Structure formats: C-alpha cells, structure tokens
C-alpha cells in the first residue's frame, strides 16, 4: 500500500503537470492499473493526468496521433479507424488482461513504466512509433520506443505517440500461461509503405531493455520463401535477442519462443493470411 502518500493533484495543463512532477516523491498516475497495485510505497505526491487534453486518436497529415491518455479499450474500439496497417497495436491492446484493466490502462501509462512486458510497447516498436515527450524545462522531443524505454529516467511527460498512417500491414502475437498474465514473450511485425519489414520482440525482462527491434531478422523477413530461410532467420534473431530468465521461463525457452512467434508472424504475412492476435 501507499506508505508515504500525502498529496494528490489533478492539474489541468501539461505545464502545471510537469512542474508538479519535478517534486521529490512525485509520480504521475493515469489509469492507475499498475501504480495502484505495485511500486507505489514511496510515492508522496500523485499527479493525476485525467484532466489533461491528451485524449483522442486523430489523423494529422500522413501520421496517426494517439494521445497518451487513450485507453487500451479505446484502441480496440478504433480498430476500423486504425485499419490493418496498425492492426498490431489493436491486437496488443486487446490481449491485455481483462476489460476492467483495458478500460483504465492508457497508452502513456503502459509506456511510462518503461517495462519490457507491456504488449503495446512491442507493437509500437515494430511500428516505428515516435513518442512525444515534454521535459521538465518545457522542451518537447520525439524519440523512438526502444530509445525511450532504455533512456535514463528524468522528469518528463509522455504526451502521445505518432505512427505512420500508410503502414501497409502489421501483426502481433504473444504467449502467456493465462490471459491475466503479462506475456512471457511477444512479437510484432510491421510492413512499411516502402515494403520494409520491421520486427520487434518483448517480454525479455521487467525493464525497458526487454523490448528489442530485430534489425537483422527484419532484413531477412521478406525472403521467407527461400529454402534455408528459417535457419538463417533463427540465427539472426537469436543473435539479437536478450537472455532473460525468470520463474516463468528460462532464457533459452524465452528466446526460442520469441523466434517462433516472430517466424510465425513473418510466415503469415508472407502467405497473406488474415492478421491474427496469435497465441495468448
């Protein structure tokens, strides 16, 4: 339980919010599905983001912008609007625990914890999404997902994510022993408008290093009909995957599972199969 919590604020602007987050013991809270369960013992001040104008999914030029306070349920409901190009993000959101969680958990919240087992982080990494951040000094920057997840923590606010609207197709697959658990491993694949394939793998630890982009394996993905493709693909992917073990799986098991999920996504995309969420 919260041991040190004394103060609660609900700022109306991002500027007020970033000021409040600079104080010692301050923590942002969006849906609260993570923070209200764990890692909150030493939080002295909660800065509730719910009043900030960071909601909505909109098309801006050739980009789709998703506000940080968009919930996972809202992503699922926007499947038609997002289209098959951003289907991986929808499937990742749909796979997250139960409806109560999806109704509260936000895109910004899933990213802001900088964990490697947040399904939407893997999908966004494959989709080469850019996060818009507001730093304590008021500077706004755009960073890639894996760059953000592994950066040194400093007071900031995730304002939203920007995705390419012309992404041709994307898919997501994961495995967890039960629907209520975070994935032991997951994978996402996106095919950009220029035909470039991009694979990401997640679940390799509770820290931000648990999500990786598989650049070498991605370069081989478009060649999936070649006879020796699977052997070359496996070798390339294994070379890039981290080694993380916990009580749910050894590093060897997790790496093998990750390669299998990624290879299935590539095979399905190569065969033009209907995008699917894959294993749960």
């Amino acid at each position: 339980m919260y041991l040190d919590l004394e103060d609660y604020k609900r700022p109306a602007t991002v500027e007020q919010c970033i000021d409040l987050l600079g104080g010692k013991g301050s923590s942002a809270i969006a849906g609260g599905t993570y923070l209200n369960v764990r890692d909150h013992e030493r939080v002295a001040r909660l800065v509730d983001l719910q009043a900030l104008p960071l909601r909505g999914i909109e098309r801006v030029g050739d980009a789709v912008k998703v506000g940080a306070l968009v919930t996972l349920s809202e992503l699922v409901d926007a499947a038609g609007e997002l289209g098959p190009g951003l289907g991986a993000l929808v499937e990742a959101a749909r796979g997250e625990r139960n409806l109560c969680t999806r109704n509260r958990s936000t895109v910004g919240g899933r990213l802001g914890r900088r964990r490697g087992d947040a399904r939407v982080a893997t999908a966004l990494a494959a989709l080469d999404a850019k996060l818009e951040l507001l730093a304590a000094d008021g500077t706004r920057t755009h960073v890639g997902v894996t760059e953000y997840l592994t950066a040194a923590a400093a007071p900031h606010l995730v304002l939203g994510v920007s995705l390419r609207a012309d992404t041709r197709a994307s898919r997501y697959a994961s495995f967890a022993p039960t629907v209520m658990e975070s994935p032991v491993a997951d994978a996402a694949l996106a095919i950009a408008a220029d035909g470039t394939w991009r694979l990401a793998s997640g679940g390799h630890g509770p820290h931000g290093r648990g999500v990786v982009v598989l650049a070498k394996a991605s370069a081989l993905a478009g060649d999936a009909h070649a006879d020796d493709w699977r052997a070359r693909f496996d070798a390339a992917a294994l070379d890039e995957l981290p080694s993380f073990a916990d009580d749910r799986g050894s590093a060897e098991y997790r790496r093998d599972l990750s390669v299998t999920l990624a290879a299935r996504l590539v095979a399905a995309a190569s065969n033009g199969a209907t995008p699917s969420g894959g294993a749960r």
Partner: protein
Amino acid sequence: MIRFEAMVNGEQLIAEIEPHEALTEVLRRCGLYGTKRGCESGDCGTCAVLVDGTLVASCTLLAVQANGHEITTIEGLARGREPSAVQQAYIDTGAVQCGFCTPGMVMATHALLSRNPDPTEADARQALAGHLCRCTGYIKPIDAVMAAAALVRAEKEAAGE
C-alpha cells in the same frame, strides 16, 4: 483528508477520504457493501463498478481518481426493491452460488448489454473473462448473460423502444 463528492447511484455522495484509499473501500465505508473486496489487484473482477458508464475494477482505482465522476454500483441497478433484468436473470438461471463474484459479473453483464443488446455466447464469455468464480464453473453465468439479454430486449419491446 480530501473531500470526495460524486454521484453514486444517482445520489450525491460526500465523504472525507485519504488520498490512498481505493474506491472499493470508500464505497463500502459508505454502506455500499455489494461491491466486494477480492484480490485488490484488478485480477478477480468482484469489485467491478461503472464509472461514467465504463466498467472498472474499483480496487485498482483510488477514490480521489473517481472524485467528481458518476459511479454505479450493484445497488444502483435494482428498481426500488425489484431486481433489474440482469439481476433477475442471474436468479432465474441459478448463476449465484456463494455470491461473492456475482456483483462483479452482474455489473459486467450490465456493461455488455448497454453496448451490445444482442450478444453472442462468445461475447458473453469475453465479457465475463477476468471475473473469477470458484463455484459455478461459469456455465450458468454464461446462461445468465444470454437470459439477461433476452429479458432486456423483451422489456424494451414491451416499452415500445
């Protein structure tokens, strides 16, 4: 202490709360015992309530986060002393055994039928996913959802809606 003001089941509820208190605790302290305290981690679904019409786990929502919002608990579904169509369906199908999970399942069913008045059995299963029950084996609650949908449709037809 923080002043908590929200519309709960159509009536203004005012209470003094600590910032760390979960919504479950505040509701129960105010006499709304139908919302059960279960896992306290958002996994079991027995504490489910509607906040602004959206199904949420009240154990992973601080009461201060719900301050100023519209909340519906299991007590808010009944029509006076008469059960709602969803509650009646749970009774009729024998979907209640120990009753601990029932309020959350009823709220989930209510939320489903608000969005989808004609659910398939797959929709019903999806709606109850995350609501754990150690008694029924889930068969009768699924039956209850389908029966509730039929009852609600019949009520709407009778009302000419």
